[in-house]
């Protein structure tokens, strides 16, 4: 009996994925629907891997998008952590600047697109700025709350050993909030990836977001669905890389197997 239920549990995930593909196939086989079949999607995927659209193959489009994300991301991490530390560690700086931040924070990054395009045109700058906005906010918030939620006795212990305010920051506050900062960076990366897709969907000549809109304009639904899956896979890989990085940067958070 036990063995039988174990077998069922082993088969269920396969059934789940099977059901997803099954439902997709049934929907795509309906008369008059535009939904592509899984096979059509796969074939379209193979074609765009080698045949360029708008002078670029799929891998190139992905790289273009990734480059936009990563170039904004560097700024977002550095400035985000600095801002978060200033807010979390220096109450007067927080008093001065955080109301402005709180005012702008609830605006979804996507809603910045029209203003950014108006101000900077449709080149690289507005896209990178958009990704920056999308990534900056979660990093600031997590850094700040990471620093503010440190066990006060950890700080007192540091004081009792003679740390001054700045030494406390580097020996105690920053390392203690590293896990929170990394969680913020993880959120920032998925938010940044979404922003780049959005920006490219609204105005771009290359990138995965552009590709998906091109599919819409051409009624090429197989192209759209392959792009959706590619976007999903990239997003998954990015977060997997960061999870690995977490283990390297905060070994004290995770059990070491001896």
């Amino acid at each position, binding site marked *: 009996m036990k063995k039988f239920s174990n077998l069922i549990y082993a088969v269920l995930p396969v059934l789940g994925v099977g059901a997803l593909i099954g439902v997709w196939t049934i929907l795509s086989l309906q008369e008059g629907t535009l939904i592509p079949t899984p096979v059509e999607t796969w074939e379209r995927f193979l074609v765009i891997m080698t045949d360029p659209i708008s002078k670029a193959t799929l891998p190139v489009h992905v790289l273009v998008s990734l480059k936009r994300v990563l170039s904004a991301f560097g700024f977002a991490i550095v400035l985000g952590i600095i801002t978060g530390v200033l807010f979390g560690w220096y109450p007067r700086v927080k008093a001065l600047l955080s109301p402005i931040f709180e005012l702008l924070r609830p605006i979804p990054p996507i809603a*910045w697109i029209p203003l950014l395009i*108006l101000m900077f045109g449709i080149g690289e700058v507005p896209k990178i700025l958009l990704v920056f906005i999308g990534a900056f906010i979660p990093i600031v918030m997590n850094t700040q709350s990471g620093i503010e939620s440190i066990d006060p006795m950890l700080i007192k212990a540091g004081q009792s050993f003679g740390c001054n305010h700045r030494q406390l920051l580097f020996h105690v506050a920053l390392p203690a909030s590293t896990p929170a900062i990394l969680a913020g960076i993880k959120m920032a990366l998925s938010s940044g990836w979404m922003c780049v897709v959005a920006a490219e969907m609204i105005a771009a000549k290359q990138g995965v977001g552009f590709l998906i809109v091109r599919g819409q304009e051409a009624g090429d639904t197989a192209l759209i669905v392959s792009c959706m899956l590619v976007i999903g896979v990239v997003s998954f890989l990015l977060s997997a890389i960061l999870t690995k990085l977490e283990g390297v940067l905060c070994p004290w958070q995770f059990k070491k197997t001896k």
Partner: protein
Amino acid sequence: MISKKEKRIRLLLSIAGLVIFFGVWEMAVQMGFISSRILSPPSKVVSAFIQKLTDTKPEGATLITHFLMSFKLALSAFLAAVIIGVPLGLFMGQYKAFDRFLTPIFEIIRPIPPIAWIPIVILVAGIGMSGKVFIIFVAAFVPCVINSYLGIKLTSPVLVNVARTFGASDWQIFTKVCIPSSLNMVFTGVRNALGASWSTLVAAEMLASTGGLGYMIQMGRQLIRPDIILVGMLTIGCTGALLSWLLGLLEKKVAPWRYR
């Protein structure tokens, strides 16, 4: 302990920060450092806001009409996602069969950003109500399910065992121990879902719509009316903040044990 004097200093700093922010913004445009074609000064945004409450020009509807259109759309899709997603996530966390069957499906759908659904949905369902409701539903559904699932999974096994020693049945353990202990996680999920649905709505309206706040800011760009864009952005931001605040109040009522 913060002294009263320090509190007063901080309050003054906060006010000073905002005054400087708006002051610099106003001056930068008024004195021509930034062209008024690409950015409107705060004073102009305020007057545009008041005017837009009743004026349908230039893109065809008043701010209130746009707002109500967006709000109804987002709220109905969001509520549907919560009503279906939260119980589903809870069951997935509690019952292994649900978990094994559904989790892989979620792992496949989850990494796809909701806005990437927009083009296919537009093609299949058109730019009407139903397509957008579906997209927003997807955006809100995923965080609802995932956080409810995690909430159950993170229930302390000790709490479960205590209930078991009292002779509680599996169903009683699920409803009386696991669900209450996961409520805070559920609320986190619902709050994320709210943010996601609101921001996805804006994206959907920017890409395919004839009304709504997203449409309004998109038209503001095409008509080169930065004041309209800013009014739209502020309305979007304020509504988002307000909804999230209301949700926080609700959480304090329903699951007060996190706040002591």
